[in-house]
């Protein structure tokens, strides 16, 4: 099992491990424009402006990971790619946003365009639509910051033949990191054995810095 691409996204910066891409951004809209200019995202993503904040973060980080893994969107490869999103928050912010808005509006009718984001899989669903990911799609939450389990859960789905590649996306309030896990190496491209990353993850002090995990791609930096 291999990690064939890694990306990370923080409040002001972003990067990828294999291709060594990194930069600053002035917000998610700014990053979206940058990624389109760099042709990492080709063509406008339908309704991106109306995505919830979590959906934007996950979507942009996944775009970077797909680029790092050399997986073209809307391709036979991404048709066999799934998404596992993990993190302690679930859809908490989206739930609060929806229900506060509903209460503020007089408790008569909620707003459907906010309600559709009140599932922890909603950001993954928007990402799957954006890039044509037809594999398994799920959220996994353990209450403690434990990206190792998420990586292993995602890898297990690949090993079981449920997908050729899984994007394991670790989300917390400050950062998002996305790991493309595959049972096959990409031809002529470096990759990391998953067990090395999982083993190295024991050295991290906290999950709150998932972007630091991308630094475990020592062979790439």
């Amino acid at each position, binding site marked *: 099992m291999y990690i064939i691409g890694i990306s990370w996204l923080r409040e002001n910066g972003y990067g990828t491990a294999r291709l060594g891409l990194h930069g600053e951004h002035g917000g998610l809209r700014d990053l979206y424009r940058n990624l389109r200019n760099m042709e990492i995202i080709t063509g406008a993503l339908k309704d991106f402006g109306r995505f919830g904040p979590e959906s934007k973060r996950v979507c942009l980080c996944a775009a970077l990971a797909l680029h790092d893994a050399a997986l073209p969107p809307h391709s*036979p490869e991404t*048709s*066999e790619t*799934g*998404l596992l999103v993990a993190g*302690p*928050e*679930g*859809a*908490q912010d989206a*739930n*609060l946003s*929806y*229900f*506060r808005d*509903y*209460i503020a509006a007089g*408790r*008569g*009718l*909620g*707003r*459907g365009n906010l*309600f*559709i984001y*009140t*599932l*922890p*899989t*909603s950001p*993954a*669903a*928007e990402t*799957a*639509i954006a*890039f*044509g*990911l*037809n*594999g*398994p*799609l*799920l*959220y*996994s*939450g*353990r*209450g*403690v910051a434990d990206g190792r*389990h998420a990586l*292993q*859960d995602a890898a*297990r*789905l690949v*090993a*079981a*033949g*449920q997908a050729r590649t899984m994007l394991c996306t670790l989300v917390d309030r400050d950062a998002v990191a996305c790991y493309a896990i595959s049972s096959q190496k990409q031809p002529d491209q470096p990759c990391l054995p998953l067990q090395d990353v999982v083993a190295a993850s024991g050295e991290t002090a906290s999950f709150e810095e998932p972007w630091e995990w991308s630094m475990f791609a020592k062979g790439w930096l």
Partner: protein
Amino acid sequence: MNGNSDKGYLASSSRGGHRDKDRRHCAAIVGYDVLTPYGRGVAALWDGLLSAKSAIRECRQFRAPTFRSGKAALVALPDAHSNRSRTMRLLAELFAAPTMRSPSEAELLVATTTGEIDLLENTVLQGTDGNRGKLPDMLPATAALAHVSGPAAVVSAACASSTVALAQAMIMIRCGVADTVLVVAVDSLSEFLFSGFSALMALDEDVARPFDRDRAGLSLGEAAASLLLMSETRAVRDGYRVLGRLTGAAMTNDANHMTGPSRDGAQLTRAICRALQDASTAPEHIAVIAAHGTGTRYNDAMEMKALTAVFDSPRPTFSVKGGTGHTMGSAGLVQAVAALEAIRHGLAPPTIGMRNVDDAARGWVASEAQTVGGGAALVVNAGFGGINAAVILEGEHGK
């Protein structure tokens, strides 16, 4: 890949028959239990479904009369646990009189969509801390109620949460990561849910009518369920009676729309084909289908397209959602329990709520019970975001 190419691969790999499987690769079902609007226990669910009477009623709670439908299927809960969230009260009632003994070290997967959402509602209404009601926070209390202490995780995949959790549990056992996994599924009714589904215009103003030609939406419900999976080796060693087996699973995504299913059903077709392939089971061996069958126009149409694409002839097919309501994250596990009982009793329960079968479902779904022969069960679920999941179950026919 499209559904047709998957079906072609299936035909070539299964040689048109049911092959004996190496039992080590199956996850044995050694216990299951449910709490539904029909009452506590599997017998209450089965009797309720066979009665052809719906548990969906006028609902005075959750400001239900304000919304598009004031009807829902509620579980009658004792007041003893009223200081807990409604979700925890459902789980407490489910585990109050356990019908199975889970090894204490069992891993725990909790399938849900909104968890303890009423805790979040209260923080908003009272203007207090907004950190309550996060999904993973329900794990310790759930594990305590279930008397298990192994690693635990929440699994959420919209209305396919249970089926995805079952698939994950099966994979964990197959690959030797765990030899016992307790899958618990729960979702409770709330103002949050009522208001949201009403805003999406997804509710039938009356009672849901799955696969009816005049169906107009879903009805909300709530339930809690549990299913204990074990490796065959462990089950034999510890003297557990094997009640069934989870032999195959597959998950796909439409990648099409946030709420509406893909009209062509291609990815659901793919999930069903791959689940059959995973189970080394030919379509002909499927004796009964527990459909997702929400009662919405698009889901039911999509589901029939997928079933018609996979199977050369109709199978006894049923939906429980006209009886129990749509129980969200717990729907798949309730369907799985109903499917196991269908195999055991040799009967597919009537699809409650359906009065005039849609042409696409004619010959498959009926408003009375149907005879079920020997064979396996297919359980199908679809969820918001285009999630599809299918599992194959074998049970004890006639026992």
